[in-house]
């Protein structure tokens, strides 16, 4: 068959050629017994494209059925709960009083919900850029060649395997009762001396020093939590850094780029797609963390069997965070550089 030797033919054409070839030979030869007929041509005839689409559906079918049962149905169910007063009875949930009452109560009557929500949003907005910047910094360092890099990486990824579990909460709690001042405070004492202030005074800047010291000490006092939250993000950025082609680095050093220029003109554009992934991960992670204030409220309500109200709190929270995420993505998407496409 000539077509196969020709590199440009795609599979579809070969398939068609195949068909015609078989038909032609079938015309010339005496009819074959039915059992030995090639299996391909039994059943419904479909084009290659259509058949591929069918196989695609087959591949995702298992997941789709599962997600209807384990994800979509419960999701819709909880949305329905959120519009009702609920009560657990034998065989399921009894729902009465349809309406927006739960949502109204959450925002107008609950004295904890709105403050917790604003505090949470403020925290996320403050922490997310910090986490991203910090993990980019660490990833760049861990990507350089030096002795003991494997050990350093092993230590920096340790939070990935421990931080999601109950272990770290317990250890942190114990450290504060044990007088080890919760780690974070221990480290912040390093910065409690008025070093920044003195430095600024020395440089002849007097007025802004108080504010600046405040900002710096809030940043540094949280360094423990910061480092412990960065594991996955460092991993993501490191994988993006490995994807920077060597030619880009070579060209930059030929042109005499300094490390600073290299970072802004080569590194940042190349890792910008991963920036989005890390951003989504960070926001979602802080959002679903059972330790955050809003989640605590939601879980408390559900422990008191107020499932409808709990669902309403969770849904309102989810929608708000979704909107924030959407806005952040819209803004960031303009600055992302994709090498392909």
């Amino acid at each position, binding site marked *: 068959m000539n077509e196969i030797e020709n590199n440009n033919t795609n599979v579809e054409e070969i398939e068609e050629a195949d068909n015609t070839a078989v038909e032609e030979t079938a015309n010339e030869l005496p009819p074959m017994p039915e059992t030995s007929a090639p299996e391909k041509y039994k059943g419904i005839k479909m084009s290659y494209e259509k058949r591929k689409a069918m196989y695609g559906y087959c591949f995702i079918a298992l997941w789709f059925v599962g997600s209807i*049962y384990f994800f979509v149905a419960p999701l819709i169910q909880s949305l329905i709960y959120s519009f009702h007063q609920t009560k657990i009875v034998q065989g399921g949930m009894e729902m009465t009083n349809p309406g927006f009452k739960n949502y109204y109560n959450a925002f107008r009557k609950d004295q904890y919900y709105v403050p917790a929500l604003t505090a949470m949003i403020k925290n996320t907005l403050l922490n997310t850029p910090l986490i991203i910047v910090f993990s980019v910094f660490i990833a760049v360092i861990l990507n350089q060649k030096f002795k003991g890099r494997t050990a350093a990486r092993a230590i920096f990824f340790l939070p990935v395997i421990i931080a999601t579990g109950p*272990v770290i909460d*317990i250890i942190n709690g114990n450290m504060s009762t044990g007088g080890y001042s919760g780690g974070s405070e221990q480290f912040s004492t390093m910065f409690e001396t008025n070093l920044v202030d003195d430095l600024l005074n020395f440089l002849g800047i007097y007025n802004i020093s108080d504010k600046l010291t405040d900002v710096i000490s809030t940043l540094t006092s949280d360094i423990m939590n910061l480092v412990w939250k960065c594991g996955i993000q460092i991993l993501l950025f490191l994988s993006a850094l490995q994807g920077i082609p060597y030619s880009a680095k070579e060209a930059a050093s030929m042109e*005499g780029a300094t490390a600073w220029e290299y970072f802004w003109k080569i590194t940042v554009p190349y890792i910008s797609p991963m920036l989005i992934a890390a951003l989504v991960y960070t926001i979602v992670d802080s959002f679903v963390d059972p330790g955050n204030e809003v989640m605590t409220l939601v879980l408390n309500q559900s422990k008191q069997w107020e499932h409808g109200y709990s669902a309403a709190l969770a849904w309102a929270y989810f929608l708000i965070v979704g909107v924030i995420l959407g806005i952040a993505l819209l803004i960031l998407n303009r600055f992302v550089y994709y090498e392909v496409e």
Partner: protein
Amino acid sequence: MATKKEERQFEKERKAAIKARMAKMKAEGLENYFTPDQIRYNRNQKILGAVWPIFRGLILFGLGFVIMYPLLFMLSTAFRPNDQMTDPSIVWLPKSLTMDNITQTAQVMKVSYWDWGKPLDNTVLNTIVLNVVASVLQVITCSITGYGFARFKFKGKNAFFALVLLMIIVPPQITTIPLYLQYAYFKLFGIIPLYSNGEQLSIINSGLTMYLPAIFANGIKAGLFIYIFRQFFRGLPKELEDAAYLDGCGPFETYVKIMVPNAKTSFLTVFLFSIVWYWNDFYVSSSFFTENRTMALMLKNLDATLQQQLFDGQTVSIRQIIVWLESGCLLAILPILVMYTFLQKYFVEGVERSGLTGM
């Protein structure tokens, strides 16, 4: 081909030659060879090359210490006799070491790493079986789904994929209560009641609450795993499939015989992460298990169980409880930590090589 030893020799000679040439240039005056800009650039690079490693070492050491700090605290207290907790002269190093805390805590948590006599009563074994079975199922089904998304064109693909993204974003807390009811009155689209003669079937407390979602690619963080697999399979060359097709492979055969062997590292990475997340999970398991024991659950309730079973109503000061709690922490993360030290390279390199790069 030169051997490694020879390569090293060549490298040495090359460096010596460059050094000699630089010395010669310097003797004749660098201005003859370079522009002033180049000279300045080279000098700056040289200074940076000397100073930066010191800074890097300091930063890495400091932050590494911050990360290790809680773990050091855990090691320091887990083997400390409890009366030494209130001794102000001890900060990090205890005066004597004891295994009592560990053995007592292990008894309370029903954990045993040394005696495998009663496998049904051992929390570790129970957790390991739960985790490994669920993770294996989850990895297989998620990879199949991810492959479907990566390599086939069909109508509504984007809508389906939006559902995957939604799975990543929606926190499990929203769906837990309806799920609980689904499990407690288990009907499975009304199939079960047809065969059970009107009896209610509840799968709360059984491992099925973990296995069933995993079989259907809906386990813990399944959305993320589907995403990773999709990215990975998208990165493999299309020619692989075409070649397989020409040789008479159907899509499922292609997947099993061509794609899976190519994705080995990716599989291992996802499997390890899945194990870790299942091991650490206490939200989902605490919702569906009231009697079934997992390590994370036992650890979460350790404070209460200690009061009940070990102290017998006596009051033990809050500082002294620390030694048992920390022993519990050590027992709970020991398997994960051991796994991490041996397979560390797969956590790191696997992710680098897998499709995550293409996000």
